[in-house]
Structure formats: structure tokens, C-alpha cells
């Protein structure tokens, strides 16, 4: 169980030409643009770093042609800068980009990747033989990763029925109920009402893919979803192309605090467009999310939140981005713009 497996950058979708130089530049940009200060300390470099063939001992190996200073040099650079490297693997016979899959080689690959210096992997359940039970594959890799070291984060992207019930038992530290490659990986709230999550196995809502044209509003909405569901947050982007406005949204301290909260209690829908989450230190988060194409009035009721009239309690609500404050006795109605959201930290007074 790794305590800080929550925030990172991913190059999987945004980078089609992986080189050791680009990885180092990305690490530099993560620091320069303030992402590492905000807590983003994982960098997932996908699968394009791998050679298309295993070596003579059957081990995964780096593509030497793209690492001018050697792969070890890249790993050292990441470690020196406090960045934990992640990769994309496959539970099946090949990865999405045709690199070796880990089917029937789970223990070898876990040992190899950990020995190379990776500390995180998205294990994609694709290209699996049709008659093979995916749950067994999840258990295999869960155990294989675990016995390498307690700091090897295993994220299982498995689309079997009810994987949210099975995920924790397989040893996954993070789980998704969709394959990584088989969907757009837009960050979405859990399909089922609970999207079960706990400190030892976090539910993953999806990547936040950020391009030059991605609106601040859209980024905020997806970050709010991640935060309210305690989902790890991976920004798939070219860090050097992020605008200052985009960075500002991604590094909001209050929202990151909600996301990385140690109680890991799930958000709960308490009204139309309204979710609430208990945080540590007796604080709370409330989000008003408008998914429609028109502006909408959304109302937060303290009764639904759990405050009875007889309690004498009130909510003091502070919006994470605008810093607008409200003292609420029974309800708060706000007009939320189309496709936008307000998210509040809440203190009870």
C-alpha cells in the first residue's frame, strides 16, 4: 500500500515519439511549471520505451535507440528529481502499441520492471486469450508486484463484471472497471453509486487528457470528479504546452487537498448535481456540478448533507477557485454555468 499514489503526469496519449531526452525535459518542466511542488510526482512513460522483442532471457528491455544516454541514465535522472517512473503494461499477450505483454510472465516482468526502477504500472487487460479468466491474471500480477517491494504501485484496468468487488482482493493498489486502452479514458464519475475506494485500493475515475485546446472548465470538472472520488489523478499532456491558466486549475491546493485526503471516504450524491465528501480533520467537500449544456440552478440542502434543524449547526463554505464564502443554515442555491462546477471546502460551525 503506497500512501502517496495520487498525482502524476502521463505521456501515454500525448506523446507518440518517446525519447530519453523528452522524458528528462518533461521532468524538468514538471518542476519548472510547479507541478511537482503541487504534488505531482509520478511520470508514466507508457510502453513506447520498450523494445518490441524480449531479450535472450525473455525479459522486457528498453529500446536502446531512443535512449541516447542509456535507459539507466533516464531512471537516475527521475530519481534525482524526486519523480517516480511508471509504465503501461498488458495482462495479455501484447500492449496497445505492440510491445511484449505479460501474459504468463507476470513474475518475470514484475521483477524486471521493478529492477529497472519503475515504481508504478498501469496494467491493461487487453489482448487476453478468450478462454482465460482475467481475475486470475489480476491476482497473478497483484502478488508478483507485491513481492518486489511495498512501493511498487499496481493499477489494474480490468473490465470484468464486478471488478470493483474483486479488485482489492487481487492486490491492486488502484483499479479501474474499464481497460486503459479500450476507451477515451475521459475522467468520469463511477458508473455505480459507490465506486468503492479505500486507502489500500483506490478507484480510478480516468485520465485527464489536456491538450492546447482543452478548456479550463473541462479540466476543472474532471479534476473535481477525481477529487470527490479520491481517485488518483493522471494528467495526460505535454507539460511544456500547458497554459498558465491550465496549470493554475491543476495545482489548486484546496482541490488537491480534497483529492489526497487520507480518510478516502467516497463522495455521495445528496441531491441533483450535488455530491458531498467527508474529509479528515472533521472537514468536508461539497461539489455542485452542472453537466448540462445550459446554465442551471443547483441547491445544496444541509438536511440532505446530514445537519438536522435541532443540531444548531451551520456550514461555512468556501469555493476552492473563487474563494467566495457562504454561511449556510438550511440551503444554498447557485446558478452553475453550463458544463461547469463549484467545489467547496466546508467547515461546520
Amino acid at each position, binding site marked *: *500500500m503506497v500512501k502517496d499514489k495520487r498525482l502524476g503526469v502521463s505521456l501515454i496519449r500525448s506523446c507518440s515519439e518517446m525519447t530519453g531526452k523528452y522524458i528528462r525535459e518533461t521532468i524538468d518542466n514538471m518542476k519548472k511549471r510547479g507541478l511537482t511542488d503541487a504534488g505531482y510526482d509520478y511520470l508514466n512513460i507508457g510502453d513506447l520505451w520498450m523494445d518490441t522483442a524480449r531479450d535472450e532471457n525473455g525479459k522486457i528491455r528498453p529500446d536502446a535507440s531512443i535512449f541516447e544516454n542509456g535507459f539507466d541514465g533516464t531512471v537516475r535522472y527521475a530519481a534525482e528529481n524526486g519523480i517516480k517512473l511508471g509504465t503501461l503494461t498488458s495482462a495479455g499477450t501484447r500492449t496497445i502499441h505492440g510491445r511484449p505483454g505479460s501474459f*504468463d*510472465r*507476470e*513474475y*518475470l516482468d514484475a521483477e524486471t520492471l521493478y529492477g529497472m526502477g519503475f515504481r508504478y504500472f498501469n496494467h491493461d487487460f487487453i489482448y487476453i486469450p478468450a478462454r482465460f479468466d482475467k481475475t*486470475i491474471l489480476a*491476482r*497473478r*500480477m*497483484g*502478488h*508478483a508486484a*507485491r*513481492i518486489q517491494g*511495498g512501493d511498487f504501485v499496481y493499477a489494474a484496468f480490468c473490465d470484468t463484471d464486478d471488478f*470493483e*468487488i*474483486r*479488485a*482489492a*482482493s*487481487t*492486490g491492486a493498489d488502484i483499479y479501474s472497471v474499464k481497460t486503459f486502452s479500450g476507451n477515451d479514458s475521459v475522467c468520469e464519475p463511477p458508473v*455505480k*453509486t*459507490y465506486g*468503492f*475506494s*479505500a*486507502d*489500500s*485500493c483506490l478507484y480510478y475515475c480516468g485520465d485527464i487528457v489536456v491538450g492546447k485546446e482543452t478548456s479550463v472548465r473541462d479540466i476543472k470538472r474532471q479534476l473535481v470528479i477525481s477529487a470527490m472520488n479520491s481517485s488518483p489523478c493522471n494528467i495526460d499532456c505535454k507539460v511544456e504546452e500547458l497554459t498558465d491558466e491550465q496549470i493554475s486549475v491543476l495545482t489548486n491546493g484546496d482541490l488537491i487537498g480534497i483529492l489526497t485526503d*487520507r*480518510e*478516502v*471516504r*467516497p*463522495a*455521495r450524491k445528496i441531491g441533483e448535481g450535488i455530491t*458531498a*465528501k*467527508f474529509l*479528515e480533520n*472533521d472537514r468536508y467537500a461539497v461539489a455542485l456540478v452542472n453537466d448540462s449544456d445550459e446554465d442551471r440552478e443547483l441547491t445544496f440542502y444541509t*438536511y*440532505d*448533507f*446530514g*445537519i*438536522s434543524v*435541532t*443540531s*444548531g*449547526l451551520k456550514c461555512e463554505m468556501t469555493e476552492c477557485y473563487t474563494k467566495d464564502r457562504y454561511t449556510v443554515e438550511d440551503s444554498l442555491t447557485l446558478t452553475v454555468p453550463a458544463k461547469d462546477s463549484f467545489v467547496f471546502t466546508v467547515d*461546520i460551525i
Partner: protein
Amino acid sequence: MIRKTPPMGFNTFNTFGETYNEQVLKEIADAMVDRGFKDAGYEYVVIDDAWSLEWRDEKTGRIIPRPGKFPNSDILPTLNYIHSKGLKTGIYADVGVKTCGTKVGSFDYEMLDARTFAEWGIDYVKHDNCLKPETQDDEVLYRRMGIALRHCGREMVYSASNWGWDNVWTWIRSCGAHSFRSTGDICDTFDSFVNIFKSQVLKAGMTGPGCFNDLDMLTVGMEGKGNVAVEGDSSHSEAGYRTQFATWCMFSSPLIMGCDVRNVDDKYRDLLCNKELIAIDQDPEARPPYAIAHDDWTTYCKLMSDGTFRLLFINTDENPRKMHFVLHDIGYTTNCGYSVKMTDIFSGEEFIADLFPGVEVPGKDCRLLKAEFVKD
């Protein structure tokens, strides 16, 4: 308050029902310390239903401790005594207008009652689910008490006891609870605990650090005596209690003893204090067990935080039988480069597993093995 591991303690209900008093509670506290339960990790002494009167104080609205149990309606001497033994105190409340024993309920008084408990130094609240207005939503009521307990001025474990109604496992974590009951009450019979854990196998994935699925108070050691005994039933046995305790530990359930700890047989005291079993329960990752189903029996497997496994074989038949599993079902592969060392938790016997390890399990009993992958 973040509760990383399942709470451990004692509750009055299974043995005493409503028939306890201050003296009994002090003796319980003494026994918890003198008989080694506290050293094993049991820390809460939870006073269940019937500690209060049927009405509140007219002026203050506060709950009044029952004078027949606590002289002068003063519960503080009892609670202070429990604290003086290095233990923690627990108390019973109810979401409704009355408790299950028709004493005062906390409906619309959650904040006042939470503050009262805080003033008294309570460390744990069991919140039952009787006699609530039919139009009230369980989730809202449990969230109310969750908020009340967080703002009353004292940290307390919040044990929600709504017996699994309204798919509680889908929302209780969001209400601030540290544990939740998801079945009706346990009885001191073999079938009772078997039915409870079997009903939770597919919901085991809903438990985890911070909020644990509570399989109910243990009946281990009760031997047909006490409030939840079933007249005429003789199905309880040492093997059965061993199976119950091992199952509760595999499920990372709170371990709340229900037997009379003052005089429970030493063999059950030893079972309840078994360090290896408690370590399974208290594993920091609290990963749920999964079932490996065979034709007519089931093996339960739990992955521990250190990478080892615990395998529980439960035989609910009268007759002994050989039970086995295939190593590959727990993630072993032919080419993994490891051998699997097995250790019987109860006997200490060790062996290297073949691909189809089996154990002889006596009737209505269990075997519990540790499996560890060892590099070839």
C-alpha cells in the same frame, strides 16, 4: 478520526442483554486486563442497550442513565473505572425515537447526545436502527450521527448497526462510520455464524481501511449461555468457535467479544488472544478474502500486506473431508520461479506445497494455512 484497523473490544449484549450493571461492568474491565485480553489488543468495553431511562431530562433534554444500573443515575464512576484500567469506553445509541429495548433514541437529538457522550468520555458509539420514523432515510440519519460525532468535541469510533438495510455497504463509508453491520443479529449456533459470513462473501470487497464490514459480535466461548443462546441448540463447539474466529479475522471484521470474559474457559481466552489470528484481522491493508469455489466446498484466500496468503478451509459437514485447492488459483504460475511454503496456523506444521495442496478438515471445523512464495 481515521480508524486504520478494525476495532477490538467487548460488548454486553450477547451475554447480558439488559441484565448488566455497574458492578458487572467493573468486573468485565478487570477481567479484560487480568485475563490478557487488553494485552492482546481488546480495548473497548461497550455498554449496549438499556443503559438509559425511557425518557429524557425535561429541562436539558439529555439522556439519563438508568439508576437501577448506575447508582444515582451517574454513569461516570463506571466509565472512569474502565478508563482507569487503560481501556476505552463504548455506548449504545439508536437512530430512531426509541432504542430496540424501547429506551430513549437519538432521533433529532443526535448533536445533544453526541455532546453528552463526549462529556462523559465515551470512545465508541454503536448506533442501532430500531424504531425510526418510516419516512426517514437511513442514510441521512446515519450521516447525521456521523457529523454529530465529528463535532462533539471528542474522537469516537462510530459503529453503524443498520443490519444491512438499504444496501448499507454502498453508502455507509460516506457517512463517516468506522464499521457497519450488514446482517441481522448473531445467535450462539454453528449455522448462525456460517450464514452470516456466507452472506458477506460477495460483499467482502466493500470493506477496507477506515470502514470495516462488521460480521457481528463474537459468540466464541459462550457455550450456550447468555442472551443470544438458542434454547435446545447444542451446535456450539470448540471447533465451531475456532472456525468463527478464524473467519472473522479473514474478513477483517471488528473483533467485539460477546462471551462473559470474567469466566470464559481458558481455551477460548487463548483462541481469542491468538496473535497470529489477530494479525490476520489487523493487517493494515485489510484486503478482503476471495472464495475459490470447488464442487462442494470453498476455500477462502486473503492476500496480506507482506505478500503472504492465508487460506481458510471450512467444513460445514458433520464428517471430516479432504479439501484442496490448485495453487494457480491464488496467482501461482508454473514459471514464476518460486516454491510455496505452507504453514498450518494452528498446529505449526510446515510443508512445501505441490500444485494441488490438500488438508484433512474435521467435521464442522476449519484449517487455516499460511502460504509464502519462496524463491527457488
